[in-house]
């Protein structure tokens, strides 16, 4: 046999073995399909704090689902693939990212930004293409009857304050008035509007309210004016985490003795480091201390998974973003479909979803005109001696 023939026989033998090994494994491979889900978040720029927190939480849930063999929908099993896009907290970038995800990657589900401007720019694409868009931003107009494919997966200041202000009224009956400091943009205006309305509904008098430009770090001039009004508590819910800590620090430096308050989630370690533990004392916020008094098994598991994947310290801003993919996965499994319309109908129909914060549902028919706002328990915590202490939990009442 010549050298050439030997080589041909050898190659055919190898191909034959490979083919015969491949045939029995082929049906198994075919069962595991891939489901692409788009994700548009601010992964750089000033909103990156929230975008990267969302990315961590969503990635943890993706790993968990893929780790248990994938998403089971009917007889099919899907491996989740998240297509990450950076909107840079900018509407034009968000819109471009959505065009790419829808037209090139052909995704049917998009997890969305924390920027109202981005969401409003992306919605014409998602709604006209019947793409399920799960979002987080505070603007009221993000949810509307003519936007049935948009669901908000995180509580806004409206819902959180429905829980926190009644708690403040009950816990501090002597407090009578409140001052607001918010960033001067669409998000800040929207939050301030909610804050004012709900403060007044809960018998607090608004005695000061002023906006500041994002990027400001010296708040002395603004706070000097605020302190003269002597408010019982100062609410800066719309300010980013670092600004909140700076405002608390500078308020105390100027001699303010009242309470500081925020309806957003923050990292207590970071807050205390910037503000100084002494200046952070007594600060009330909507932060979930996963290892505190309200720990359930799911929260403990999230904490452990987080530390195993990202290491310490734990970022308490991340858990709320876990709800995005968690509810979507449940809705797909319950509906037995990956068709966005069927998943949407299921999300609307089911009365109780299981989340790490406990039972959740969608509401807002009266307030937003459509039942698309997630309702999860609101956790209220206070910083005591540099540590986060759980003070209460409330279920917001959203008509």
């Amino acid at each position, binding site marked *: 046999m010549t050298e050439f023939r030997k080589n041909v026989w050898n190659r055919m033998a190898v191909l034959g073995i490979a083919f015969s090994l491949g045939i029995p494994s082929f049906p198994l491979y075919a069962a595991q399909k891939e489901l692409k889900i788009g994700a548009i978040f601010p992964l*750089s*720029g*000033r909103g*990156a*704090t929230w*975008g*990267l927190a969302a990315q961590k939480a969503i990635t943890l849930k993706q790993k968990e689902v893929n780790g248990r063999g994938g998403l089971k929908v009917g007889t099919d099993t899907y491996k989740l693939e998240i297509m990450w896009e950076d909107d840079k907290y900018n509407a034009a970038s968000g819109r471009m990212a959505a065009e790419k995800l829808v037209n090139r990657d052909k995704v049917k589900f998009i997890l969305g930004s924390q920027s109202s401007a981005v969401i409003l720019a992306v919605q014409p694409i998602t709604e006209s293409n019947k793409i399920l868009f799960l979002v987080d931003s505070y603007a009221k107009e993000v949810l509307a009857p003519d936007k049935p494919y948009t669901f908000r997966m995180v509580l806004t200041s409206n819902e959180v304050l429905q829980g926190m202000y009644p708690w403040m009224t009950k816990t501090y009956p002597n407090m009578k008035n409140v001052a607001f400091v918010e960033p*001067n943009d669409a998000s800040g205006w929207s939050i301030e509007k909610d804050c004012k309305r709900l403060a007044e509904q809960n018998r607090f008098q608004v005695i000061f309210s*002023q*906006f*500041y*430009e994002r*990027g400001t*770090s*010296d708040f*002395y*001039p*603004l706070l*000097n*004016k605020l302190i*003269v009004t002597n408010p019982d508590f100062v609410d800066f819910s719309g300010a980013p*985490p*670092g600004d909140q*800590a*700076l405002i608390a620090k500078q308020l105390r*430096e*100027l*001699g303010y003795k009242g309470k500081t308050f925020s309806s957003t989630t923050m*990292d207590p370690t*970071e807050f205390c*480091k*910037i503000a*100084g533990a002494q200046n952070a004392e007594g600060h009330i916020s909507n932060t979930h201390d996963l290892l505190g008094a309200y720990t359930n098994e799911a929260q403990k598991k999230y904490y452990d998974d987080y530390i195993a994947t990202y290491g310490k310290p734990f970022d308490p801003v991340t858990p709320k973003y876990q709800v995005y993919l968690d509810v979507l996965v449940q809705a797909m499994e319950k509906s037995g479909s990956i068709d966005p319309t069927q998943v949407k109908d299921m999300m609307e129909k089911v009365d109780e979803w299981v989340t790490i914060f406990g039972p959740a549902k969608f509401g807002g028919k009266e307030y937003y005109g459509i039942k698309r706002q997630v309702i999860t328990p609101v956790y209220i915590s206070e910083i005591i001696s540099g540590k986060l202490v759980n003070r209460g939990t409330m279920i917001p009442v959203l008509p």
Partner: protein
Amino acid sequence: MTSAFFFQVFVNGLMLGLTYVLVASGFSLIYGIMRLLNFAHGELYMLGAFATYLLCESLKVPYLISLGLSMVLIAGLGILVYRYFFRPFRDKHDPSLVIALAIAMLIGGLALLIFGEKDQSVSPVFPGVIRIFGATLSRERVVVIVIAVLLMTALTLYIKFSKTGQAMRAVAQDREAAALQGIGVDSTFTLCMGISSALAGAAGALLAPLFYVNPFLGMHAVLKALVVVVIGGLGSIPGAIAGGLLLGFMESIGNTFLGEATEILGFVLVMIVLLFRPQGLLGHG
């Protein structure tokens, strides 16, 4: 409103103004000598803050030594930026602008990649507050005011009286004539970039314990610096001081009486200055 309240408004304005002066002086110096709008100056300020953060928090270097080291490190970085990026485009106005913007974006992007998006802070160096005539000021702010005044005085004296400072002025006035007198234009530019960057580093290091440190500080700082130097006069150090203080006092008073409309005051002032004195308050025609 009491006299203590108004004194607090004055002190707030002084502090705010000195913050602007610190950032704007280096920016103005570069334009004055090199005719370059260095948009990367804000990023050098941000790196100065990060350098101090790392030295103080990770290496536990005492704050004042960290301040000095940050100035040296950022000066070194500024010289490298000049040597490898600005020098090839030295006499080309438009490309150098684009390069400056590109460097700003590059440094900002790298900082985000390396340091992450979270706000960091330097532990309080001089805790506590002091009261002067009823006005309250943290000790940290007093330190910033004192060091800023010292730095500005030293810079002014250096440029006015030292041999290399005089060489800088000569190069700024007429580059070719200065070269004919034996002044090394390239070495003067290198020195100018080093001093300007050191000032950015000092600003970052001084303000880091007061505020927070993150990779996004640069752009806001350079925009304020631009407003300050246009008001004071591009290229003029006394102009940067005057412009910074004027803007600081205006913002402090504006916040007290106008509220959020204050933010546009700086731009209104820029427009007025450009209309009636285009070279800036203390700039040369």
